């Protein structure tokens, strides 16, 4: 099969929650809720299919919002994707899910439903909505009953980092299929200070998580604990668990952030972003086909691998590069040093990184 290309598609802004860290509702964003009309949705699918065909890729839609299930034509879209045999998943809310709805999603080909847990009950409900934590735990059972994969994603910041030991135990106990976390992307200077984690503290946090993951795996836990944050590569490298091949090409990019490489984001307005976690509009799908946007100059600005100020000197440049969106949130420059990267020297040359 041809490799996947991921489209994170926000079909609606409508949502029952107003999460404190949500980039959609942050600051003065989203004064008016948008929802993509059905005719436009069909156009998006066709444009993404065309792009993938030209790139020899297989489309994979991550349908999200807002809460995508609130879109008035959500089920028409599900039917369309089923008819086209296109892989898709949902990044959504726990509300409105029951066994019947989940079975319907599964029957329409939805292979994975991703929920969010941002801590234990008090923390999670503070971020999201009273009752959201309890609803999420119930939704995990409904999703798993249906046959879909159940993924749980967390956003880590100084506000909830202390909850993670319990949270990891919880997802293992609930037997979710996938657990991962990403770092909070600040949407203002004040928030970057308020939610900041110091680099070495973040390394210690990864160390705690790694040991927790190993503990649960050793006890037969079937959850896939994904190393989504690219700073995991640095952690594992230092632990001797990730090794670069000796014959690699130092000019090449093998892994790390795939912004502008393996995924694109489409908003309800048709605006296309390199990455939804930062302000990175590259055009609009209703004005320019997705393929043209992918090969266009605007998206190329997000692939300037030689511009990474700190990573450019690091032997892990081809594999890590941290999270440019988090960096952008702190500095306004995705190529600046990652605010949680604790690495100081190139371990091959001894050069100081910054």
């Amino acid at each position, binding site marked *: 099969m041809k490799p996947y290309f991921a489209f994170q598609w926000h079909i609606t802004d409508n949502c029952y929650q107003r999460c404190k860290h949500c980039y959609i509702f942050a600051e003065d964003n989203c004064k008016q809720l948008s929802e993509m009309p059905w005719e436009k949705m069909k156009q998006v699918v066709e444009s993404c299919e065309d792009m993938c065909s030209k790139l020899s890729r297989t489309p994979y839609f991550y349908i999200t919002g807002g809460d995508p299930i609130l879109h008035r034509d959500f089920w028409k879209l599900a039917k369309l994707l089923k008819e086209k045999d296109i892989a898709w998943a949902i990044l959504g809310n726990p509300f409105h899910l029951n066994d019947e709805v989940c079975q319907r999603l599964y029957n329409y080909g939805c292979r994975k439903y991703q929920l969010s847990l941002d801590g234990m009950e008090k923390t999670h409900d503070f971020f999201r909505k009273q009752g959201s934590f309890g609803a999420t735990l119930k939704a995990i059972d409904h999703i798993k009953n249906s046959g879909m994969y159940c993924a749980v994603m967390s956003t880590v910041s100084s506000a909830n980092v202390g909850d993670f030991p319990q949270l990891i135990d919880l997802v293992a106990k609930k037997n979710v299929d996938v657990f991962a976390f990403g770092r909070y992307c600040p949407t203002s200077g004040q928030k970057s200070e308020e939610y900041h984690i110091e680099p070495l503290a973040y390394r210690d946090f990864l160390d705690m998580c790694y040991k927790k993951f190993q503990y649960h795996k050793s006890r037969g836990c*079937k959850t896939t604990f994904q190393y989504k944050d690219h700073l995991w590569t640095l952690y594992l490298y230092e632990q001797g668990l990730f090794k670069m091949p000796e014959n690699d090409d130092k000019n090449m990019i*093998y892994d790390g952030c795939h912004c502008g490489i*393996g995924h694109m984001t489409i908003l309800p307005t048709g605006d296309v972003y390199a990455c*939804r976690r930062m302000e990175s509009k590259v055009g609009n799908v209703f004005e320019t086909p997705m393929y043209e946007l992918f090969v266009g100059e605007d998206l*190329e600005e997000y692939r300037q691998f030689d511009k990474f100020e700190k990573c450019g000197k690091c032997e892990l440049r081809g594999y890590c590069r941290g999270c440019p969106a988090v960096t952008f949130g702190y500095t306004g420059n995705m190529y600046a040093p990652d605010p949680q990267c604790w690495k100081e020297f190139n371990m091959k040359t001894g050069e100081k990184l910054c």
Partner: protein
Amino acid sequence: MSEMLKRVAAFGAENSACGTKDPAPSACGSACGTKDPAPSACGSACGASDPDKK
């Protein structure tokens, strides 16, 4: 194809900025574990792969 994309070993990925990868088996090498992340047909240009596929 763009000059920068020519430098990417493989640019396929199934996980979005906010999404997790499927736990299903794949031929893709791991960014984080025991598999070799060297240039290959796998889509490892794009985010940490599963360390332990089911």
